[in-house]
């Protein structure tokens, strides 16, 4: 299928809603993406025709809903090339998925004398759960450096793995600030050679790249539905079945047990063990629709569109006087954090909003990374989706020139 961005834009109802009387130029998809009609309709259809609680009712409607929920799990497994759908655990979002691993692997399987290794470019969601684990259990927390170009310092990574004491490496597959795509295959090979497991936060990457967990060889991979054009409230933890089998539950409740008495309960097998309580059924159906939508367009076509868009944006933004891009990684996706010399990011965001442009301002849940690059006041960030056009990038660049004049 050829990639026709104008036709794709018609799939997203919100894109035809003006903002402040101007066409919406939505450049905050890295925070949360807009939703295509197919996702909206699938969720409505589920509620109108196929909704009941899952995994319990011995009646047809519940079986239909259960089938839809489990079909979503299957779709996720195929989407990331997981060998087995039982390895796919539905969570609320990536944050919950990481907390699940920090809790159940970190406290249930890892020893306190094993170290954790993260990097300077992590989102707070991949920092704080490990700090909490460290503070509770005494695990050492190591931080891999990032180069001035915004790439993972592989020498530092190797040095911090060298003593063989690292139990788990937790790393973003793509930075939500710098756009850097990390060399995950190399990281996994290096980590495994030193006896460490690897968790990858794919919240950004899964939107922009074909992800194959089997080929990457990682131990855990997580992402969230709402950045992938799906609904909020649904995320994914993928883990190797052997790992999930060894892990104690995260939350206790219904659906995650095998048997319950007041003396003792026994746990269900994965993935049910990690899905206590009624899950996000409608949202799982929505995520399935989002994956189908992305698959129908084709990840290679999306990648090609975004690669062209990234090259275009690099040229256009570099031409804006006074603009400094944060990071210049060789391998990068459609996320651009920048400073404009005389405009504070928050003022800039307020200003661009009146021109119909939505960007994010602040530190994008990556405060240590901003400290690392000496931009404590934060940055402005434009992030792309599959519906972003080169004309929108041009409009942004023009607006930035005008904003600079406004604050001159």
């Amino acid at each position: 299928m050829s990639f026709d961005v104008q036709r794709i834009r018609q799939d997203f109802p919100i894109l035809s809603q003006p903002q402040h009387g101007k066409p919406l130029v939505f450049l905050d998809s890295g925070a949360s993406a807009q939703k295509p009609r197919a996702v909206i309709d699938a969720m409505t259809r589920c509620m109108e025709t196929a909704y009941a609680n899952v995994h319990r009712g011995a009646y047809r409607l519940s079986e239909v809903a259960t089938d839809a929920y489990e079909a979503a799990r299957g779709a996720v497994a195929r989407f990331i090339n997981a060998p087995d759908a039982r390895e796919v655990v539905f969570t609320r979002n990536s944050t919950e998925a990481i907390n699940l691993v920090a809790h159940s692997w970190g406290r249930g399987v890892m020893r306190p004398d094993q170290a954790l290794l993260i990097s300077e470019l992590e989102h707070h969601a991949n920092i704080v759960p490990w700090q909490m684990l460290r503070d509770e259990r005494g695990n050492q927390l190591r931080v891999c450096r990032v180069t001035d170009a915004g790439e993972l310092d592989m020498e530092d990574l190797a040095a911090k793995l060298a003593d063989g004491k690292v139990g788990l490496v937790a790393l973003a597959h793509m930075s939500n600030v710098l756009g850097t795509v990390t060399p995950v295959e190399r990281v996994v090979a290096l980590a495994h050679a030193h006896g460490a497991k690897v968790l990858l936060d794919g919240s950004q990457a899964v939107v922009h790249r074909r992800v194959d967990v089997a080929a990457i060889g990682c131990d855990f991979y997580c992402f969230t539905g709402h950045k992938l054009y799906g609904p909020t409230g649904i995320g994914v933890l993928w883990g190797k079945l052997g790992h999930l089998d060894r892990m104690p539950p995260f939350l206790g409740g219904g659906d995650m047990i095998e048997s319950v008495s007041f003396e003792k309960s026994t746990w269900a097998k994965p993935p049910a063990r990690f899905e206590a309580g009624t899950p996000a059924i409608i949202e799982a159906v929505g995520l399935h629709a989002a994956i189908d939508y992305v698959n129908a367009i084709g990840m290679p076509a999306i990648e090609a569109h975004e690669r062209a868009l990234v090259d275009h944006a690099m040229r256009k933004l570099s031409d804006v006087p006074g603009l400094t891009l944060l990071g210049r990684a060789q391998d990068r996706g459609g996320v651009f954090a920048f400073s404009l010399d005389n405009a504070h990011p928050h003022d800039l965001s307020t200003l661009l909003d009146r021109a119909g442009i939505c960007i994010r301002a602040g530190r994008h849940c990556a405060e240590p990374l901003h400290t690392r690059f000496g931009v404590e006041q934060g940055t402005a960030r434009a992030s792309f989706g599959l519906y972003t056009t080169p004309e929108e990038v041009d409009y942004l660049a023009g607006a930035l020139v005008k904003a600079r004049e406004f604050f001159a």
Partner: protein
Amino acid sequence: MSGGDFFGDLRDLYQEVILDHGRKPRNFRRLEDADRTARGDNPMCGDRMELFLKMTPDGHIADAAFQGRGCAVSMASASLMTETVKGKTPEEAQAVGTAFRDLAMTGQCPACAASLEDAMERLTPLSGVHEFPSRVKCATLAWHTLNAALAGAKEASSE
């Protein structure tokens, strides 16, 4: 000034006096002999300031100065505040602060007594912020910090 039409009604928020104080904040310095200091933080957006007050023997604010980083609105608000509170008693300064918070949140100042008129006139250019709910705390951070300094607290947060 270009860009006015392009950015719609943004002149309501970014009046010339705001841009001027944002670019060149007044009293932007450390008071080494300050009697009262407090730090103000806006943790969601990273704005941060440190306020210094020098008091007269009879309890008036002799001098006010600040240092910090933040957007044009927060810098301008802090700058205008330091100009406004000089010569006032803590009670007078706090009354202005209360009236200003009303102004920032609603664009109106029902509590503005005649005695506050001069002070409020200086602060009126910031009233446009009430149309930007996510930015109100940028304008009020300085006044939260002033309250903390006057109350002897070390830190204030706009959250």
